[in-house]
């Protein structure tokens, strides 16, 4: 078992005929993900990679194949539109990989999703990989392994780094989840941690944060009050200068808030060990996790 996905997950890829969409669809298919349809307006009727039928609209993909999940690879100017379309067509899980979506677009789309009970992951995220179940996004399949650890991160490649080390140490994962580094995202740290806490297969989990906002602090508060499973954290951006956007639109120290030092303080005060280096995460987890 994993969080957010299961055997009933049937996937449509929006932007399947684009360069990145096409490349990663092949990777997802290779992993065994049930991708049953693709969408690119104007390409309806074609077949992607001799395997996946392409439709003009998500509505068509849903009515033909009963898909319930969408992975979005469309360019920034069309990303919010793609989310609305997937939600309107009935998808209950939407993973938006697209980087560079205007924040105001995301603010507007949020209530639309809430009204329809849709879970969004991202945008500007690597998506998720539930080993043995589904790869929804761009996390490299080669580094994951089925097992008892959950991982949630605001970052992309830093997530891979940590997953890589978990796997190397023999610690497989229930779900590896990258929630994205934008200021307004669908699924938050808190949502993910609640889900990991409730997932019986997840025995321990890792939380990779970064500067900006107070999502880590909120998670710490929840963990302190509710979580008995072992949790280890890491915060990227200790050396980031204030007022500068560190790539992610959300990674910015402003008005003295959202610093790595502050986050570390709050996490440690909540009893969550914080690793100095990515390579220290696994040892710290092993230290507190009496299996």
């Amino acid at each position, binding site marked *: 078992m994993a969080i957010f996905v299961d055997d009933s997950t049937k996937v449509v890829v929006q932007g399947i005929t684009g360069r990145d969409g096409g490349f990663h669809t092949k990777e997802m298919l290779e992993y065994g993900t049930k991708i049953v349809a693709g969408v690119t307006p104007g390409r309806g009727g074609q077949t992607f990679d001799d395997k996946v039928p392409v439709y003009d609209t998500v509505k068509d993909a849903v009515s033909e194949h009963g898909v319930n999940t969408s992975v979005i690879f469309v360019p920034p100017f069309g990303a919010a539109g793609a989310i609305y379309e997937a939600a309107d067509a009935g998808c209950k899980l939407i993973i938006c990989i697209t980087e560079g979506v205007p924040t105001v677009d995301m603010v507007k789309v949020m*209530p639309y999703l809430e009204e329809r009970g849709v879970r969004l992951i991202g945008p500007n995220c690597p998506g998720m990989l539930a080993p043995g179940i589904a790869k929804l996004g761009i996390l490299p399949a080669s580094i994951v392994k089925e097992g008892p650890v959950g991982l949630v991160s605001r970052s992309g490649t830093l997530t891979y780094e940590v997953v890589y080390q978990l796997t190397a140490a023999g610690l497989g994962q229930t779900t590896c989840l990258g929630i994205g580094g934008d*200021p307004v995202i669908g699924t938050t740290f808190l949502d993910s941690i609640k889900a990991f806490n409730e997932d019986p297969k997840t025995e321990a989990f890792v939380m990779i944060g*970064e500067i900006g906002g107070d999502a880590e602090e909120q998670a710490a508060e929840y963990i302190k009050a509710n979580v008995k499973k072992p949790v280890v954290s890491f915060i990227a951006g200790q050396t*980031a200068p204030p007022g500068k956007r560190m790539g992610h*639109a959300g990674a910015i120290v402003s008005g003295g808030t959202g610093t790595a030092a502050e986050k570390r303080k709050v996490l440690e005060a909540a009893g969550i060990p914080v690793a100095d280096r990515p390579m220290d995460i696994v040892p710290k987890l092993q230290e507190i996790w009496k299996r």
Partner: protein
Amino acid sequence: MNIHEYQAKEIFTSFGLPVPGGNVATTADEAVTLAEKYGMPVMVKCQVLTGGRGKAGGIKFCESIEDVRKNAEAILGMDIKGHTVHKVLITPAVDIESEYYVGMLIDRNTKRVLLMASAEGGVEIEQVAKDTPELIFKAPIDPRYGLLDHEAMDMGMRLCPGDVKKARQLAASMQKLYQAFVHSDASLAEINPFIFTPEGKGLAIDAKVNLDDNAMFRHPGYEALRDLDAEDASERTAREAELSFVKLEGNVGCLVNGAGLAMATMDLVKYYGGQPANFLDIGGSSNPQKVVNALEIILSDKAVKVILFNIFGGITRCDDVAQGILTATESMDINVPIVVRLTGTNEAEGRALLEGTKLHPAETMDEAVEKAIELAG
């Protein structure tokens, strides 16, 4: 993208917010001409992209043309927190009876635009937030309905209890500010202070707006608002090459894919006693030309003694990165050592491409960072 006060006021004006007239001057002569047009008194206000301009002596009240000339001469060219003043705003001075703070920003928690307002206007709002947070009123705005009349009025009445006329002006300005925020794709919009004159007229006499870089594609006109003089040359080149780059003071040039990993790499350089020369995220795309551009930007900094690639391939494929490194090294005269760590998607293909070159390979991040620091000397 941060824009100047005078530019923010132009946006405000186009959305109907009450702003006193004004225009910018780049010379004292121009400043005097403008001041003569408006009549005395006027304010001379330095236009730099930083706060605390008044404290730094960049904002002056002028009662005579001589004052204007003297102050404009003094302020133009002044250095304010590392920003050189190239322009001053000349604007009619108004009598102030009361001052308020009105601001909007993206609130990550509610996932909405957050209206913040306070009767403690004209001072640094961060300080108010720290010392007396109860004096700042907050209201998240439902994007489906916008800032409704009664919500704006409620906020206006909190700021001006018992004074409906002022509350109405504040409310109307808040609603216009919301329109300006949303339609200009702002990430921050502040009026500090919003003032009332002794006659009861409300005016936004200062303005601060940050625009969402991700939304520039739908505001082609906003590109002209960018102050190229205020930007570091390498940061500008990086932006034009669509690379996310921040210049730092060290000697280890970092090329990393992904913002989180880039920050963690910088942190690790510091951890091992080195100093990162920059933050650079080559982004989620796998365009080899980007790597070439990134190398050129980093190498333009003569302090850089080593290049450290830390690539974990997800959406970026290692073979593209390797190809980019090769293209770059073949076309450029690079005389600093290059440490390369490649892992992830198409890792094998990427490593194969680099075989037999002078690049220093590394297996892990820690190994790569330690090697880079060592090579930097």
